[in-house]
Structures are given as structure tokens and as C-alpha cells.
């Protein structure tokens, strides 16, 4: 029973990822895509969590953390790129 629920949740997450991917491809503006990517990241993270419950292992908790950080960094840098046009500014004191 428990396994069925988990599988269902996994499928739902995959559907959510697919929908976000659709937005990622279509997304008329850049911020749309940034949000879509962030959503994909979060959904992926949750999907891994469910998979690790399914496989009953703690080994993937690191992967979840990493994905969280990456997703965060990715979104931040995307936003900065949209805002400023560059990621790393060379001259800070001018």
C-alpha cells in the first residue's frame, strides 16, 4: 500500500517536471524559464527523496542537499544574469 502511494507521488512529480519543462521550452520571457528551472530542481529533489524512501536508503540524502544548493545557485545566477547581463562583475570599486 505504502509503496503504491509512493509510486503515485513519484509519477505526479514526474508529471510536474514535464509540465515545468514545457514552460521551460515555451516560456516567452527569460524570467519564465528561470522560474521553470527552479521548479524542476525542487521537484527533482522531492522525487529523489521519494526514491530513497522506496529504496529504503539514506545514501541519497547528500544528493538531495546538493541539488537544493545547485538549484538555489542556478536560480540566483540566472536572476542576476537577467538583471545585470553579467554573472561575475570585474570592477567592484568604481
Amino acid at each position, binding site marked *: 500500500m505504502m509503496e503504491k502511494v509512493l509510486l503515485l507521488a513519484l509519477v505526479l512529480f514526474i508529471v510536474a517536471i514535464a509540465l515545468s519543462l514545457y514552460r521551460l521550452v515555451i516560456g516567452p520571457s527569460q524570467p519564465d524559464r528561470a522560474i521553470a528551472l527552479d521548479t524542476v530542481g525542487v521537484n*527533482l529533489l522531492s522525487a529523489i527523496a521519494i526514491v530513497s524512501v522506496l529504496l529504503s*536508503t539514506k545514501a541519497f540524502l547528500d544528493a538531495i542537499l546538493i541539488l537544493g544548493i545547485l538549484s538555489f545557485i542556478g536560480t540566483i545566477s540566472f536572476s542576476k544574469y537577467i538583471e545585470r547581463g553579467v554573472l561575475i562583475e570585474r570592477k567592484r570599486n568604481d
Partner: protein
Amino acid sequence: MNLIVAIFLPILAALFVPLLFKKVKQLHTGWFVLLIPLSLFFFYASFIQRVANGDIFSSTFHWVQSLQLSFISYIDGLSLLFSLLITGIGSLVVLYSIFYLDKSKEQLHNFYVYLLLFMSAMLGVVQSDNVITLYLFWELTSISSFLLIAYWFNRDASRFGALKSMMITVFGGLLMLGGFVLLSMMGDTYSIRELIAQAPQLAQHDYFTWALVLILFGAFTKSAQGPFYIWLPDAMEAPTPVSAYLHSATMVKAGIYLVARFTPIFAVSELWIWLVTGTGLFTLAWCSFFALKQTDLKGILAFSTVSQLGLIMALLGAGAMSYHVDGAVETVFKYAAFAAIFHLINHATFKGSLFMIVGIIDHETGTRDIQKLGGLMSLMPISFTVAMIGSLSMAGVPLFNGFLSKEMFLTAMLSIKEFGLFSFDTFGVLFPILAWVASVFTFAYSLYFVTHTFFGKYKPEQLPKKAHEAPIAMLVSPIVLAVLVVTIFFIPNVVATYFIKPAVLAIQPFLYSDVSQIDIHISAWHGFNKELWMTLGIFAVGTLLIVTLKKWQHVYDRVPAGFNKMYDAVMQFSDVGMNRLARLYMTGSNQTYLLYMLASFVVLVLGTLFTQGGFVFDASNVAPIRVYDIVLVAVLVCGTIIALVTKSRLTSIIGLGVVGYSVAMFFVLFNAPDLALTQLVIETISVALFLLCFYHLPKNSRTEKRMRFKLSRFAVSFGVGATVTIVAIAAQSQKMMTSISEYYKETVYSLAGGGNIVNVILVDYRGFDTLFEIAVLAIAGLGIFAMIKLRLGEGKEKKQIENK
């Protein structure tokens, strides 16, 4: 003195020649050089009596003993005769060159170094008993001859002639090496003596014919036989002493030597007799015909040399027939080998003197063009006498040695008809006819050479210099040779005893057991027989030809210069054709090269897999397929297809990202947490790097285009995918042994003290790989830093623009 040291003496002396040339300015360098061949000549002359008694000398210097390579100097009748020719004529040529080459204008140190190099090489060729060192010296003669022909390297014709002779002789030399290797494989020895000893067994071997043909290629190219004669007339751009030495007396006889030396091995073959005799006669007739066309004195002598070499070659071929017959006929063919050696000596004497005379004429009148020369008889009486002696000997007139050998040649050719084997009884008739026609032309060009140079009217207005007799010192060498020409006619049997009979014993070792068994006697008068009438016919028709030369010379304009054109066409074709071929497949485009590589990968792998029966499909060991595997595969395929078919590059990058993250998910599903972690981080970084590259694309190349569909690329991509899949299936289906991972599993904690098996393998069991992967990353990092920071090209470009 050791025989090996004697061979290398000229090369060792050559080391000091430049020093002497630079330090001793007053004296002509040639005087020092003269000592070398002279002392060697006397050294070899000391062997004459003992070799004539049938003794054989040999000495060995081990070179690479483990490969059985050694310098073996082997002195028997044949090699002693050649060594004497090389050192004797070498001395005369050096003496002549002292007066021919000016010590202040010419690069004498180069000249004598090349010449001494050549002398060593030639001595090595004729004395080597080891086929590999024989080949070594053989190529050294090619190289030193190349250097000598192009001695005046600022002339185009010299360089062309040198290149041509190099191409042809090295081509033949390489084929000959192949023949030698086959021969030594057949006999399991490099020694020529040992090969000759097992000659009957060799003839049964599969490689026999191959070795025969390849070695003959070497001999024919070196001795300018058959179609390979074309390099010799072009080699006449060399200084005259070189032409006299290399291209008449010594180097071109290396092929003759080779044929003579290997006759005991190959003479049992029909092919050998046909090739040697046929090519010799063909060359004899063809080149004696063309000699009359030449207007350059050296050109006449070059064609004459080639045709005379053909004569000797034909005689050697006829000599080989004696292996097949016995009884009365056998003596006739033994006679042919004898005649070959005799004519070889005669040719070296008269042709050497003629070349030197041509050099004198060139030196004293400034031209070698026969149309400008004439009437020099009273101005240059000594040269005229020597030239007359040489030419009459070449023509085969009595009182000169050429007559004797020509008579013997005619006898041998007439007797070919009686040789019953190998369909010689039908075609054999052609041989004496060809020989006779060639002799007529030989007679004609010999007279043409003398009469047009020395008789007729003196034309001072056409000559660059005022003609006068050469200094007597320059005439010494030709006079010595001319005296020999006459002397040999009167004492042929002394020459026969001391030189020819030991040499014949070396050529036909199975027919005689001792020198004393060779009972051939040369006599100037045979009585009234066929040969005499033939000779008289030659004189009559030859005189007629030369008198009416002007009337029929236009015939030559219609005869095409076939072989030279062929050589030019081959050179042109290989140059242009190879360029075209290279341009055809070397397109410079990476896509084409990738296509070649991948296509050959598909062909090779699939070909091997299916021809060797490597493909097996076995589903018994396969794990069950789960639902989320299928979903993930679908996502992965979607990502791949998006990356392939999308119009925009940005979407492509995202598609790749999708693929990367799905791979990370696969790692999750297949229980590989460490891999999943790394894959996630790396994928993120590489997608970011791709985006960076995309951002910096030049504006005008940002036009978004869908990748064009090309059938060839599709086919190759499909092939590669299919190949990899098939190989993976085949590999999975037939695992031969169990994995060693059980060992890791059992010992990861007990031996290595860790829980994470992947990390323990990375840093403990197999830490070496990790070390170098770290190194790879370090190199990549440094490389990127260097590429970004180091901008050497920029400044240069700016400077160039400023200069413009």
C-alpha cells in the same frame, strides 16, 4: 694490411681532405688523394699471382653479431679484377682530375670527399660476401654518385640528372634489397658463398623466381640496362673525370658484377637466361642505334657505354646457358662468360680513355658539341691518336683489344642457336642478327665520334677558345689506357691467365674445380669462318652508314624518345596525381575526418563481430525492467531528440542538461549515490560553461538554423549507435567469468577500514588512477588559465597591420 681496412681506407682518408684543402693552399689537393688509390692498387696487385693460382682470401669484421651482420671482404678472381679496375682507373682518374679541375676555382674538398666515398663504396660492393653489407655499399655508391653528378649544383641540368639517377638506381636498389632478403630467408644465411654452395636447393624454393627478378631489377637499374638506361645520358652533366670513372668504368659495372656473382645461383633458371640475354641484347641494339643521334660527345659515349654494358650482360646470359648443356656445346657457353669478363676489361680501358679525351677537348676548345668541332687532328695530335685507338677498339678493329672481345661475342651469339632448351632454337636466330646490327651501329658511331671531331674543317669562329694541345700531364692517364688497349691485343692470353680465368671460376664454380681446367685460348686469327665474314660485313655496312649519315639522319627525328618521356610522365603523374589524391580526401574539414573515423569504426567492429561469430544474444541474466526505468529512458530520449532537432542553440544546451540530469537520476535508481552527486554538480557546471560559450558567440553567426539533414551523416550516426548497442548486447550476453567485486565487498572494512566501497576503491585499492585524474584536472585548469591569459599573437597582428 687487413682487407676490411683496405675497403674503408678511402673513407678514412676522406676525413682529412677538407683539412688539407683548407690548410695546404699551394699544392692541388688531388696529389694527396692520388696516394690512396695508388697504394690500394699495388696492395691488390700483390694478390694477382696467388689468386691466379686459385687461392681465395677473406677477412671478417663483425658488425652486429647477434643479427649475423658482418663486413666480410672476400677476394676471389672476380672481386680482385673489379678491385684492380676500381683502384687502377681510380688512380688514373684522380691524376687526370688534378689537371682538369682548377684548384682555385673549384670546390675540390667536396669533389675528392665524394670521390673517395665512392671508391670505398665500390670496393665494398665488389668484395662484400654479406648481402646486407653489399646492399649498404650499393646504396653508398648511389648516394656518392648523386653527389658527384650534381657537383656543379648551380646548374639545373646537373640537379635534374642527379635526381633522375638517384630515383632510378635507388628504386632498383630497394627492389634488390627485397631480393637479398628473400634469398637469405631461402638459404638461412647472408653469406653469398654459403648461398652459392646451396644453389641447387634454392632453385626448388617458392621464392626463387621472386628473388631472381628483384635482384635483376637492382642489376639492371645500376648498369643502365633495358628501359632503365635513361639516367646515364643525363648523368653526363657531371665533371668529366666523374663520367670517366663512375659512368664508364666502375659504377655502371656494379650491375654486371652482381649478375656475374649471382650467376651460380640463378643460372639454372630459364627466366634468368632470357632476361639477362634478352635485356642485354635489346639495350645493345637500342642504344647503339641512338648513339648516332647524339651531337654531344659525352652523349655519344654515354649511349655507347650503355650498349657495351648490354653486350657484356648478353654474354653473361649466354654464359649461364652452360649450366644446362654438356659436351661440345658446353664449352661454347663457357666461352661466353670468358668473353664477358674480357670485354669488361677492354671496355674499362678504352671507354675511360675516350671520356678523358672528351674532357680534354672540352677543356681546350670550350665545347663538346660535335657540330662545332672538326679538324682538330693537326692541332691536337696526341689526343687524336688516343681517341683513334679508343674508338677503333670500341668499333672492334684488329690491332686493338675490342676486336678480340667482339669476335668472341659474335661466336657466342652464333652459338645461341644451338642451345636447344627454352625455345631458343626458334627465337635464337634473332640473337646473332640483333648482335650484328648492333655491331654495325657501334662501328658507325665509333667512327662518327672520331671523324667529326678530328677530321674535316677547323671552325675557329664557332669555338669559345682557341684550340690547342692539352698539357702533357693531362694526357698521361688517357695515354696509359690507350697503351693498355694495344697491349692487351698482343698479350691477351697473359691477361686471361691472370685475370679472366680466376674470374670465370668465380662465375661458373660448378663447372670447374680448378683454374687450370679452363682451357680457353684467345687468338686473333680464327681462319676463314662465319665470324670473320660477319666482321667484314660490319666494317662495310658501318662505313656505308657513316658516309651516308647526312642522308638518313632525319630518321631520328621521327623516332620518339619513348623511355625518357615515360620517366617524365611517371614523375609528373606521381607529383600531380598524389597531390590531387591528397586534396581529394584531405578536405581540411573535421566533419569529413570524423565521418571517415566513425565509418571505419562501424565497418571494422561490425565486420569483426560478424565474421568471427562474436554476436550472441542471451536474455537469461537480465534484470527485470521497472516502471520508472521506462519513464526515465523516455525523458532521456526526449532530451536527446530536443538537442538534435531544435532550431535554437539555447534549447540544444537545455536538452543536453536534461540528458545530464536524467543520467544523474539513473545513478540514483541504480544505487550509485556518489556518482549521482558528482554527476549533478558536473552537469550544472558544464551547462553553465555551455551557456557562457553561447553568450560569447559573435552576433552575426547567431542566426538560428536547424541542423541540415544529410543522408551520409545520418547513416554513419545510425551505424555507430547500432554498433555500440550490438557490441553491448553481445558483451552482456557472454560473460566469461565472475566479477572480482566480491573481494572488495568482503574486505572493504576488514582490510581498508572504510564503509563507502566506491571511495575506498578510489583512494585505496586503486588510488593510482585517482592520482593521475587529479593531474588531468590540474593540467586542464592550468591550460585554461594559460589560454585566457597568454595573448602572444595579438601584438604581432597589430604590428603587421601597422607595417602595411
